[in-house]
């Protein structure tokens, strides 16, 4: 690392990985419940497990993004972080709010709004916390020696993410209206501003790892985030189709969301081409593996598997089935979990001065987790397609259909076990590095 304050990132990465582990445990609870083994029902009913699983996901990814920003922004701006103390306070506060929220889910304290279950009073605390984070990042940028495109795109993504949280905090009596603005948050995050964050991190990593000229990388970064917004904003329509809106959303949502995969295709081609153009001399092959992996797997998970059910004619039958869960898993994994993993894999040797990369453990962590995720995606997909045919086309009752497809959840749980072994190895490798130290400082 080049600046002492970059060390702050470590604590964000550590917290992120711990919460991710907890997320996985709740995933298993749901996997078993789908098999008819709902033994924990009295203490952790399905809706509690689900809200915990998805909210932990969002919280740990955001912690990962924050950690990435605390590492990247000082290095790009060539200055120390504005206030390391504020960063620590902001981290601890974020964790406390998160723990209260997750605890609340176990005592029926929440809002029944998919992905935004955190109760309103805590929403305000989240906003204050994110403002503190943004303040720290922006102050660092302003006092910095230079403002790079990479840093600007990353910061813009983070800032828009904070702003877009607000439409999700308004109460509407009309359920359709509530859903409509809920998508302003959920969709415009994952298929909009988070792609800026992903693009920013990706560009930073490619500049560092491939050694390709910054100007070239940043030019393509603009093209990719341009494609993202060109398709993704009106693409929000793919969530509006059937919730009680004018029918023009069918074709607007259909056409524009069908273009969304091009942004992810762009990301994949970009990463692969920069790698091929580059010098291939950087020793941290582990970071490279996760970086290229994120770009490729996100194209499959988000781009291909998203496009598979995005046209209104298909979505009419798949909407709200396990087909959606199939796509949700690989998309979140490929795009956001893997880019955070790439960032951690790149940052850890620099923060600690130790070189635990490119070992058998790191290679197994990568391949085992990805093979597990492919298995999980396949299991959800098989269950989802069977569900669509049985329930939606043949007209068999919901619960009867679910009994018929239970065996796919055995495959899910087995694949999830494989996946978890990969994640376990990744976390083991993380701890091999130990804590960051000032001795790892490098003078240019």
């Amino acid at each position, binding site marked *: 690392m080049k600046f002492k304050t970059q060390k702050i990132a470590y604590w964000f990465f550590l917290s992120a990985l711990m919460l991710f582990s907890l997320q996985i445990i709740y995933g298993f609870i749901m996997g078993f419940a789908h098999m008819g083994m709902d033994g924990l029902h009295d203490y952790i009913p*399905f809706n509690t497990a689900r809200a915990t699983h998805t909210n932990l996901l969002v919280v740990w990814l955001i912690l990962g993004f924050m950690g990435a920003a605390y590492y990247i922004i000082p290095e790009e701006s060539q200055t120390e972080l504005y206030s390391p103390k504020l960063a620590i306070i902001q981290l601890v506060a974020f964790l406390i709010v998160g723990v209260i929220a997750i605890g609340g889910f176990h005592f029926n304290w929440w809002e029944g709004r998919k992905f935004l279950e955190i109760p309103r009073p805590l929403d305000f605390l989240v906003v204050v916390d994110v403002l503190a984070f943004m303040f720290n990042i922006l102050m660092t940028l302003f006092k910095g020696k230079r403002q790079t495109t990479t840093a600007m795109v990353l910061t813009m993504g983070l800032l828009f993410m904070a702003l877009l949280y607000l439409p999700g905090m308004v109460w509407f009596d009309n*359920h*359709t209206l509530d859903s409509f603005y809920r998508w302003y948050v959920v969709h415009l995050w994952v298929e909009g501003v988070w792609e800026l964050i992903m693009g920013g991190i990706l560009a930073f990593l490619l500049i560092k790892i491939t050694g390709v000229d910054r100007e070239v990388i*940043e030019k393509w970064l*603009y093209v990719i985030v341009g494609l993202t917004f060109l398709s993704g904003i009106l693409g929000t329509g793919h969530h509006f189709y*059937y919730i*009680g809106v004018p029918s023009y959303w069918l074709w607007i949502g259909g056409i524009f969301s069908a273009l969304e995969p091009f942004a992810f295709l762009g990301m994949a081609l970009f990463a692969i081409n920069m790698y091929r153009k580059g010098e291939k001399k950087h020793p941290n092959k582990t970071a490279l593996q996760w970086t290229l992996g994120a770009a490729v797997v996100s194209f499959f998970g988000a781009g291909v598997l998203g496009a598979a059910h995005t046209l209104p004619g298909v979505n009419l039958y798949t909407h709200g089935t396990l087909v959606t869960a199939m796509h949700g898993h690989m998309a979140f994994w490929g795009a956001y979990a893997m880019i955070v993993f790439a960032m951690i894999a790149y940052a850890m040797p620099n923060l600690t001065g130790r070189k635990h990369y490119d070992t058998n453990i790191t290679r197994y962590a990568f391949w085992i987790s990805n093979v597990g995720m492919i298995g999980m995606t396949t299991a959800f997909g098989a269950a989802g397609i069977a569900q669509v045919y049985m329930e939606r086309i043949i*007209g068999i009752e919901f619960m009867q259909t679910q009994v018929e497809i239970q065996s796919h959840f055995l495959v899910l749980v087995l694949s999830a076990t494989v996946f978890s072994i990969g994640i376990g190895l990744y976390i083991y490798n993380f701890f091999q590095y130990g804590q960051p130290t000032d001795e790892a400082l490098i003078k240019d």
Partner: protein
Amino acid sequence: MLTKSQAKLFFLAGTIIFSLIFLALSYDTTVNQLDEITHAENLSEEAIKGRIIWDENNCMGCHTLLGEGAYYAPELTKVVERRGAGYIKGALMSPTPWGEHTSGRKMVAYGFSEEEANSLVAFFTWIGEIETNGFPAKPAYEVEKIDTEVE
């Protein structure tokens, strides 16, 4: 060849143009058309109360409504039409976990009062009348209708 500043222009112009179109369409949808499509005039006090109960208990954490939610328990958009008010109230007021023995899944035993159950039924009735562009699609076949026994 594309230059960096052209790429930047592409990004900024695209973002601004498509954001404006999106906001204009959102305005048209929510301000001009939504009340009619959702029959907002039928949104009674009772139905709103039902929605609050729906929200406070995170029913969407197991069920889908308008196709949104979790995939653990049945789709409820047309539940009043499908099951009738009596069956729904049975599930909501049951003091023991509601569920079919074959699936192993259970619903939380909320033990709602008659009044609360009526509010939820009013909410579902309102939801069921929203014009949804054809969702849920009518199945092409009707293989079997099963009657679940009420305990």
